[in-house]
Structures are given as structure tokens and as C-alpha cells.
């Protein structure tokens, strides 16, 4: 396997592993917890490093995960006092824990290789250098195995607890009544998030973890109407942003993680713009169409109203009509053309006539707009 392929594979596996718990975070309106956890694991990593003097030691993962869970616990503890709202609690807890981490590094780490930015930014490009060797056999990059394992764990747990998680997400009260233990599920999900964050940001850094947890599910939310499609979409969008993200990084020789995070945003914007039905473009076109149809209806009804009346000549003259309707000539021309195209209007010289079909349509619209009053 070439190093480039290894990096790309790790990136895709990480994206997939992050998207699964991230999808539930987004639905539970807890997206920013991933932000908090990703920063607050720092003291765990630092303490682990002091104990083992090795940035690869598994104990670091355990301690980082523990400080991630501690973050969640502290946030809820503060919230439960009723004196602070959730966002305030989050905004208090993670900077405090992060500060402890930074202070520890500054005070005691001295010259050892442990930078805050190494922890925060991550570097996918280094993935191929850290290999898993077993009995002298090179099994590939260590991160590949970590992320594959993590994806497996996330997928398995979410598959096993799918029903419970979905119910607890949408209706915690019912879930509790049915004996599903929402609190336990909540901490399980938070544990999953913490472990995923810790394992992932070793390779990709704290910020890409947040992008990968929240961005792809947010994009999927624009399209999906059902839970399975939503989860699948989250996975797909995550993996999809990895490929062009890495491509752009290679092409421009820039940070891979940053490039992938950017692609997450680009992908979201594309979906936001182009989604059928709900996309901005589709809405804009629907809006335009509705405006045009309404204008056309108005013109037809106007003509119908003045048909066979003394003023009819003036009221259907190409020159006076735009003034009467208070339309620009440009708009009038557009609507007139559309009416002719649909066979509702006929232009004879400068006079506009309703066709039989146009008359029928105008009556129908008039009926729909102002239904005849009921008489009993």
C-alpha cells in the first residue's frame, strides 16, 4: 500500500467512525459537546504522558477518555444546579480543563516533545510513519487499525442499541417508561463520543474531529427524512469529504486535516444549495414559479373581468395593461409570453385576447381564490 493510499484510508475510516456517534449528537442538539470533549481531553493526555513518557501509550487513550467523560459529568452537574444554562456550563467547563492541561505542559513538560498545537491540530501526513509491527511483520499504519477498530465498535454498539438510542433521542420520557434507561444510554453515547474523539484526533487533531462529527450529519439532515437514510447519509458524506479533501491537500501541499474540514463545509454548502425540494436553488425556483403563476392568473382574471365590457378595448391593450397592473414592461412581456406558450392568451396586433382554455383556467383560479359564498 502506498503512503498516500494509507492516509486516504485512515481519513475515510476516521470520517466514518466519527459520523456515527455524531449523527446522534446532532439530533440530540448536543453537537457542541464534541467541541467541549475534544478540548477537555488535554489534561488527560498530559497526565498520561507524564506517567508513561510516551505519546503512543494506551494509558493516554484511557485517561483522555476519562477526562472526556468527566467533562460531560461536570457540565451536567453545573446544569443541575439550575443556576447555569447548558451553553454556559459547557463554556465554563472545557476552557477550565484545557487551561489545566496548558498549565501542566508549561510548568512541567519543559523541553519534552509535547505541544498543545500538536494535540489540537494533528497531522494525517504522519500516519504512515507510525506502523504496527507484529513479530517483525509490518501490518500497516497503527492508525489504520485503531480507526478500523473504532468504526467497528461504533457500528456494533449503534446496531445493538439502535432502537433504544432512537427512542431515547426522540422521546426520552417514553424511553424511560419503557425501561430503556435514557441516562445510561446517554452516558454510553457520550463515552462513545469521548473515545472516538480521543482515538481520532491523535491522527487528525481536535478540529477535524468536530468537523467530521457534525458536518456530515448536518448535510444528511438536509436530505433525509428517515433515520436509516440519515445515518447512511452521514456516513457517506463523511467518507465523501475525505477524498477531495485529501486531493486538495496533495495538490496545494497544505494541511490534510484542514483541507478535509474545508471540504466538509463545501459539501454541506453544495447540498444546502442543490438539494432537490429543500435546497436553496430549488426553493428559489419554486418561489419564482409561484410568483409567475400568480402573475399570470392575475392577468387572466383581469382580462376575464373586463371581457365584453365597454372599457374592454383599453383594458386589454398591450400598451395600457402593464400600467394598470403596475408591472414593468419587462415583467409583462415575460408573463404574456408564458400565457401564450400555455395557450391561454392570444395576441392580435396590440390586443390581448383570452382563449377558451384561458377563460376556463381564469374561472377556475377565481373560484379557488374567492370561493362562491355558501347559501343555505
Amino acid at each position, binding site marked *: 500500500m502506498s503512503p498516500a493510499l494509507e492516509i486516504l484510508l485512515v481519513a475515510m475510516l476516521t470520517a466514518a467512525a466519527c459520523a456515527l456517534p455524531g449523527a446522534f449528537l446532532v439530533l440530540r442538539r448536543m453537537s457542541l459537546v464534541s467541541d467541549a470533549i475534544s478540548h477537555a481531553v488535554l489534561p488527560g493526555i498530559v497526565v498520561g504522558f507524564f506517567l508513561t513518557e510516551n505519546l503512543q501509550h494506551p494509558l493516554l487513550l484511557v485517561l483522555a477518555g476519562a477526562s472526556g467523560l468527566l467533562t460531560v459529568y461536570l457540565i451536567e452537574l453545573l446544569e443541575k444546579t439550575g443556576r447555569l*444554562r447548558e451553553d454556559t456550563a459547557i463554556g465554563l467547563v472545557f*476552557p*477550565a480543563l484545557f*487551561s489545566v492541561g496548558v498549565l501542566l505542559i508549561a510548568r512541567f513538560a519543559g523541553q519534552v516533545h509535547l505541544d498543545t498545537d500538536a494535540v489540537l491540530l494533528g497531522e494525517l501526513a504522519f500516519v504512515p510513519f507510525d506502523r504496527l509491527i507484529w513479530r517483525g511483520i509490518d501490518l500497516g499504519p497503527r492508525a489504520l487499525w485503531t480507526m478500523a477498530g473504532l468504526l467497528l465498535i461504533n457500528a456494533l454498539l449503534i446496531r445493538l442499541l439502535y432502537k433504544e438510542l432512537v427512542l431515547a433521542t426522540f422521546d426520552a420520557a417514553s424511553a424511560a417508561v419503557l425501561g430503556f434507561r435514557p441516562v445510561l444510554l446517554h452516558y454510553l453515547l457520550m463515552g462513545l463520543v469521548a473515545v472516538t474523539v480521543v482515538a481520532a484526533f491523535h491522527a487528525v487533531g481536535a478540529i477535524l474531529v468536530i468537523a467530521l462529527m457534525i458536518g456530515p450529519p448536518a448535510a444528511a439532515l438536509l436530505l433525509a427524512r428517515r433515520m436509516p437514510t440519515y445515518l447512511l447519509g452521514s456516513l457517506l458524506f463523511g467518507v465523501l469529504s475525505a477524498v477531495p479533501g485529501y486531493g486538495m491537500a496533495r495538490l496545494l501541499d497544505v494541511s490534510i486535516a484542514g483541507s478535509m474540514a474545508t471540504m*466538509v463545509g463545501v459539501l454541506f454548502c453544495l447540498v*444546502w444549495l442543490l438539494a432537490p425540494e429543500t435546497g436553496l436553488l430549488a426553493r428559489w425556483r419554486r418561489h419564482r414559479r409561484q410568483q409567475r403563476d400568480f402573475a399570470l392568473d392575475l392577468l387572466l382574471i383581469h382580462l376575464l373581468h373586463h371581457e365584453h365590457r365597454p372599457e374592454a378595448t383599453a383594458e386589454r391593450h398591450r400598451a395600457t395593461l402593464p400600467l394598470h397592473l403596475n408591472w414593468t414592461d419587462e415583467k409583462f412581456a415575460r408573463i404574456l409570453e408564458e400565457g401564450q406558450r400555455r395557450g391561454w392568451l392570444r395576441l392580435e396586433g396590440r390586443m390581448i385576447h383570452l382563449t377558451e382554455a384561458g377563460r376556463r383556467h381564469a374561472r377556475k383560479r377565481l373560484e379557488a381564490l374567492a370561493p362562491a359564498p355558501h347559501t343555505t
Partner: protein
Amino acid sequence: MDFTLRIVMTGAALLGLISGSLGTLAVLRRQGLIGDAVAHAALPGIVLAFLLSGSKAPVVLQLGAAVSGTLALLWVQAILRTTRVRFDAALGMALAVFFGLGVVLLSAAQHTAGAAQAGLDRFLFGQAATLLREDLIVMAAAGILAFALVLAFWKEIQLVLFDEAYAATLGLPVRRLQTLLIVLLVVAIVIGLQTVGVVLMSAVIVAPAAAARQWSSRYGRVLLLAGLFGLLSGALGAWISSLAPRLPTGPLIVLLLTALALLSVLVAPARGLLWQYVRRRRARETARQAVMAVLQELAHRHPDAAHPHPTATIQAALGADVPVEAILRDLERRGKVRHTPDQGWQLTERSSHTP
């Protein structure tokens, strides 16, 4: 006190004052984490401003930061208006995507500008020690401008903060006022970036407001108190960090602010948890005394002083809203009353002799 320390302390105090008081704008709308998002989203603006101008002057970089921070929040607003994506997800995504773009630009700047870009990343973690006298002037000017705006639109800001719908019915330009709030917040955050950095900015916005909120329910006071808390923590944090080597200023300020917020949650007069605990204890004591008084009265009137009385009799004497049963159990644990299974409650020998 040497000159550099005076500059750093003044800068940190100004930062605390401005960010702390303006932070109330976000915290009281339950959007405290906007600070975190804007701080992260400032990065691409900082790098672009440097790449375009070739200058590392703080004013130039701060301008870039303000532009990209505002853009990020406008993106969030547009997402909220047009999709089902909620505030937390929109904010988190904007934060991460903008920061990612910033990292891309930063790594690109390393190629094109070589070593000239060194120091740009001090905005990530903040370095109070690099503050110059010129920076203070910029901070003060931006702060004065922000406060002037707050004062000028005081009534409108309060209305929009607490009741948007009502503000709209009064004919106020709610959308424009919201944009004003965003701009004010962005100013508060951008001012702080150089001192405390991206990650810790969130605490400087949130903690003073959270602390101040415990001491008052009036918006004006909360804003002033938050500013005061920010100012004190900033100055104190900068001073402590000068006492020993390798004590970074930003984390110290943040830890002081957090401590202040927690302390406020505990001891603030009306809302403090400590006083709540004391009040509950006192209320329980009063209730216990009332129940004892009823029992003593009953014993006094009854021919047999040791005659047990059912719970209902005591309940009737005190009214329905006193949790008599629980209080009696409590008294039983304390050895003041005794329970006879079939008949009811009686005073123990120990308590029947005390008046």
C-alpha cells in the same frame, strides 16, 4: 512594577472588562458558545489579512478576524433560517469548517511567506506577553466604540435580548439590531484573541456573565458586574503569571474566572446554593418545631400525657401543605418522638420534659 508587566496587566484588564461585559449579550440569549465559534472562525481572516497585506500589525489581523468571524455567524444565521439544522450543529460546523480553512491557509502561508508568517499562530494560544502599548490603544478604542453603541441602543438591545417578538411588534428593526449584537460580540472576541487565544476565549465571554448573573437579575447590573469581574480576573491573572516562570497568562485568567463563576454559584446572596441549603435547613427546623409544639399541646390537653396521636390529627393542626409524615420520621430518627404501630405518635420521655 516594570513597564511590560504594567502593559500586560492593563491589556488583560481591558480584555476582561470589554469581553466580560459584552459577553452578557450572548450568555443571556443562551448562546454563550458563540464566543468559541467566533474565536475559531477568526483564523482564516487573520491569515488572509496577513497574506493580502503582508503586515502582521495587530490591527490588520484583528480586522481580518472580525470579518471572518462575522461571516461565520452570518452563515450560521442563514442555515438556521433555511434548514432544519439546529443552532448547536450549525455553530459547531461553522466553527470547525472555518478553523479548518484557517489551518489550510496557515500551511499555505508557510510556503509562500516562508518564515515571515511565524507568530501568526500565537493567536491560537494567545500570548499576553507580546502586547504592546499600541495594542492597548486599539483595544481601548474598540472598547469605547462598543460601549458607546451599547449605550446608544440600550433600550433596543434589552428588548431584542429578552423578547424579540415584542420588539418586532414595536416596529424595531430586529434583524439589524441582531446584526449589531453580532458585531459587538465579534469586537469583544477579536480584542481578546491576542491575549488568551482561540480556545480559551469562550471562557472570557461566558464566565464573567455567568458569575454576574448570580448576583443580580437586572440586565444593567449584570453587564457592569461582568465587566468588573473580567477586569479583576484579567489584571490578577496577568500579575500572578509574572510571579513565576512558565505560568502562561491566558490559562490563569481563565481559571480565575472559572473559580469566580463557581464561587458566585455557591455564595451569591439570592441564588447561591449555600444560602439555598441554609434556607432549607432553617425551614426544616421551623417545621420540626411546629410539629413538636403540636405534640406537646396535645399531650398537655390529653388526660394521659403519653397517649399516642395519629398522623391525621397532627396534620389537621398544621394544614395540608406541611409534610407532617416526613417531619415525624425525621423527629423519630432524632429520638424526639416515638411511633406506636397501631395508634400513632407520642413524645419520648426525653422530649416531653423539655419545654
